[in-house]
């Protein structure tokens, strides 16, 4: 054998192997008779590391599933990597998951910019990009991105709900808005504006924004009060929500206070802000808040607490992110159950788009997961609630964004 032919052989061998492997792989990558491999990225480090608990709780839940025998006889191998909330790192890690780890699909990748960075890649590679952890609106677009699906109600949906409530219940409303200056804050603002329709220009009297790095938002609250607003649309993350509720109370501003779901935790936000200051706040909910006493004897909540103690003891049982993770993991378990023995990527997508009236234990009573071939928004229902000084009291009908 000449040197050249050896070289040719060496170069050709991997190509030939790849060629052989390809047709088999196209059907059920990441799936064996006993295992299904799932890829995930989460910010375990960096500015958004508070969300890291979601990845840990997901891993804990899949351990529980495996201890109970897996799904259709297959164990779940959940591979979760740190992307530090940095889009380039997400691209690298997701490519690693898809090309090197050969996962069956990518699931619950967290963050809007990070998911935007892999959106096109996963759709071009025809790898399911399931139940992404972001409230942006663009994830439910099966026509252009048939491999990507969201999960939670979008921020815009929630904005719609508040708009409807204000239009119906507040005579002569004047809305003052405080929002975080990024995609999350702007989506909420767009939601309420769309919901208000033509009235928006007249009704919204002031918009104030803050940067997530700002130390305080006191001056914004004072400005909003001085604008004469009688409705306060508070689009802030917990740290700033506490400040906003406190400051509004301290300066004697008593508007109808709409607090975004992001900061609706009783223990994390309302109690630190002060019970008196928090009374009569209104929010929209879809999950049961683990710090809300009304769920103390709820079977779903009891099961969740037992799960947390056994599988994720270091996790915070007051953190609603852990409720979120538990619920979205149950959503995936249902998809895999429905897949039966056909775990091809096509069928995984097909079953994810075939969830019908799925009730999960930690969703509010009456709220159900629904998807279809043209409906890639699994959760579209929320209910308004008012804080009575101790707990969130649900009121009114369940709002359904899909019935509009």
């Amino acid at each position: 054998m000449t040197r050249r032919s050896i070289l040719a052989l060496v170069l050709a061998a991997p190509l030939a192997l790849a060629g052989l492997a390809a047709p088999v792989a196209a059907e059920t990558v990441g799936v064996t008779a006993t295992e299904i491999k799932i890829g995930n990225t989460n910010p375990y480090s960096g500015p958004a590391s508070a969300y890291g608990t979601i990845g840990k709780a997901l891993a804990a839940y899949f351990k529980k599933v495996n201890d109970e025998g897996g799904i259709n006889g297959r164990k779940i191998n959940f591979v979760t990597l740190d992307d530090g909330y940095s889009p380039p790192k997400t691209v690298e890690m997701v490519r690693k998951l898809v090309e090197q780890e050969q996962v069956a699909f990518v699931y619950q990748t967290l963050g809007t910019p990070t998911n935007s960075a892999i959106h096109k890649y996963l759709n071009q590679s025809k790898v399911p990009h399931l139940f992404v952890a972001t409230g942006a609106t663009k994830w439910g677009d099966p026509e252009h991105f048939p491999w990507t699906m969201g999960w939670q109600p979008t921020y815009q949906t929630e904005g719609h709900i508040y708009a409807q409530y204000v239009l119906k219940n507040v005579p002569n409303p004047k809305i003052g808005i405080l929002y975080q200056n990024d995609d999350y804050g702007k989506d909420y603002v767009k939601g309420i504006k769309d919901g208000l329709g033509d009235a928006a220009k007249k009704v919204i009297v002031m918009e104030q924004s803050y940067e997530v790095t700002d130390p305080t938002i006191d001056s914004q609250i004072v400005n909003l009060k001085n604008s004469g607003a009688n409705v306060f649309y508070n689009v802030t993350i917990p740290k700033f929500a506490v400040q906003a509720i406190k400051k509004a109370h301290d300066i004697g501003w008593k508007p109808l206070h709409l607090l975004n779901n992001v900061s609706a935790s009783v223990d994390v936000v309302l109690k630190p802000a002060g019970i008196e200051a928090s009374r009569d706040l209104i929010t929209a909910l879809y999950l049961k808040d683990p710090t809300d006493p009304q769920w103390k004897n709820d079977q779903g909540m009891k099961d969740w607490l037992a799960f947390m103690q056994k599988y994720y003891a270091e996790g915070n049982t007051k953190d609603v992110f852990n409720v979120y993770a538990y619920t979205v993991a149950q959503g995936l378990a249902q998809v895999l159950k429905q897949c039966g023995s056909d775990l091809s990527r096509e069928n995984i997508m097909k079953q994810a788009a075939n969830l019908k009236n799925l009730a999960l234990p930690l969703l509010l009573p009456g709220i159900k997961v629904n998807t279809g071939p043209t409906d890639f928004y699994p959760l579209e229902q929320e209910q308004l609630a008012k804080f009575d000084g101790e707990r969130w009291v649900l009121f009114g009908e369940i709002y359904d964004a899909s019935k509009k």
Partner: protein
Amino acid sequence: MTGAGLRRAIVPAAIAAACLLPFLLSNFRLFQFTQVFIYAIALLGLNILTGFNGQISLGHGAFYALGAYTTAIMIDRWSVPYGWTIPVAGFLCLVVGFLFGIPALRLEGLYLALATFALALAIPQILKYFEHWTGGSQGIVLSKPDAPFGLKLNPDQWLYFVTLGVLLVLFVLAANLLSRRTGRAIVAIRDNPIAAQAMGVNNALYKSLTFGVSAAYTGVAGALSALAIAFVAPDAFNVFLSITFLVGIVIGGLASISGAIFGALFIQFVPNWAQDISKAAPWAIYGIFLILFMYAMPRGIAGSLRLVLGRLARASGGTRRAA
């Protein structure tokens, strides 16, 4: 064999190996090496400024972002062919870097570090502010360029070769720049600015120019990164990126051209290894790696290699003489 002789043998071998990689490695690994080359270009830029000229910058992530967004906006808004966007990004950063260098002249050492740090802090917010151009925090999605002229290369392989080509050109330019009169002036300013001035070096002009060239290198790297990642967003260019660059040049070797490659390998792969070792505390492991490297190789990887090569050369020269 002398040290220079060894280097003359190693460099072509390394280039040949780099050209073979695309046919041996998976696309994912190629993508990682493309990122190494991109980081290497950025690190060389920072090293020209910090290592050779002695000006500390904690804000080179801002120039990286400027380069990336120049490319992204030109492709996304005006459909400019990507090849043209790279020199434009470099030129724009050259001008901005030069202009930033003029007021920065009044600042020495740590004060300059703080001023540039402010730049790094500000850039994500500035990018969000010009939402109309930058797409705000949603960023801009791009497509990976396909190989031209019907070359049978996939986009990953093609981008790898483009990046390698840009890297080689920029490294040769830097080597030429730094080994001649200009380079000696740049180093002289670092070692003793007053003596340099007395020798007739225009310190102000040289320092601003060095800042500009350094920014241009980093900007080109940013432009290539926009193509490789096919996405830009403000969150990709936080303060941490600038600090990572500084880590890269110190670990790689200050005032060394090859050090940029070693530094790039470090900042690309060591965080991943750290995560493989411990999911619970990857940054603690990374910190241990950093300390170990600094302890074992206080002059960076390139500095230590130079020592070893020098000793080898002397040893072999010695035996020859003895024989």
